[in-house]
């Protein structure tokens, strides 16, 4: 097995506000708002503000590419809904989350964050070496990285098996032999082939 590439989420900017309110629409009811989850905000920020591609954004968020695409389209749909229907937007975690800078120690190989921004960091907290480098975007993702998992999709009709693609529901997979929808191996629907 090849070693897993080091993946650390990039320094992320917390949302600066907790939400947005529409103006000029007197018909807007108070409780009509869309709730933007933190990961949706983050996907929008990475894809549309930082202009990263979906692969890069997926790596930074530590999710599979299909999952990132799903989060991202949900985010766009919510923003569109707010614009079109005159709803306000509430951003989850607007005040809670923040990501500090991450560093790598060349001496002991550890990675660490630096949560106290007011103090300068010069030494590795573990081995006290001063050979530390700030982990920048670009060094931290590996183009060849593909999320792996050991799950198997199985066709409940003919028993055909294929490796499960993380982030892609098995039922979206079509059996190449008999064109049935597939299921996750080991679940009750696939029982027929578990013995």
């Amino acid at each position, binding site marked *: 097995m090849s*070693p*897993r590439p*080091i993946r*650390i*989420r990039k320094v992320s900017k917390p949302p600066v506000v907790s939400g947005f309110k529409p103006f000029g629409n007197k018909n807007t009811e108070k409780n009509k708002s869309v709730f933007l989850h*933190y990961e949706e905000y983050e996907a929008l920020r990475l894809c549309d503000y930082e202009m990263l591609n979906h692969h890069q954004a997926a790596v930074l*968020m*530590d*999710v599979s590419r299909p999952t990132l695409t799903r989060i991202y389209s949900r985010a766009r749909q919510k923003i569109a809904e707010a614009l079109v229907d005159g709803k306000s937007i509430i951003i989850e*975690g607007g005040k*809670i*989350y*923040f*990501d*500090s800078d991450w560093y790598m120690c060349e001496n*002991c*190989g*550890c*990675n*660490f*964050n*630096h*949560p*106290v921004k007011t103090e300068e960091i010069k030494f590795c*907290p*573990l*081995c*006290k070496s001063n050979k530390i480098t700030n982990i920048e975007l670009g060094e931290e993702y590996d183009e060849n990285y593909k999320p792996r998992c050991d799950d198997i999709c199985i066709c409940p009709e003919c028993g055909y098996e294929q490796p499960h693609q993380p982030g892609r529901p098995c039922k979206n997979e079509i059996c190449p032999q008999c064109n049935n929808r597939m299921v996750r191996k080991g679940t009750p629907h696939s029982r027929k082939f578990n013995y």
Partner: protein
Amino acid sequence: MKIAITSTGNSLESKLDQRFGRCAYFIIYDTETKGIEIIPNPNKDVEEGAGPASVNLVASRNVKKIVSGAFGVKIKSLIDSLKIQMIVLKETDKTVQDIIDMLNK
């Protein structure tokens, strides 16, 4: 200062546990008193929410740093917001004692 180290066993000869939320034990080391506290992780086998529950556990001991093999994305944000430093050592054979020795250097 207190530092939590995720451990595969209940002794200092145990290896660093690569998981945070579902590690077998937390070993809490106090750099001032050199005291050791060994806590079996009650969240080891829970279905959901092991990460946040483990964060609460170590945060309640006033830990300022955590040494482990990996932290999930959401957990990173949570730990970050508590101003606790995360030290990630991947694929290591180091024992808890090795790590304490490094911290004492």
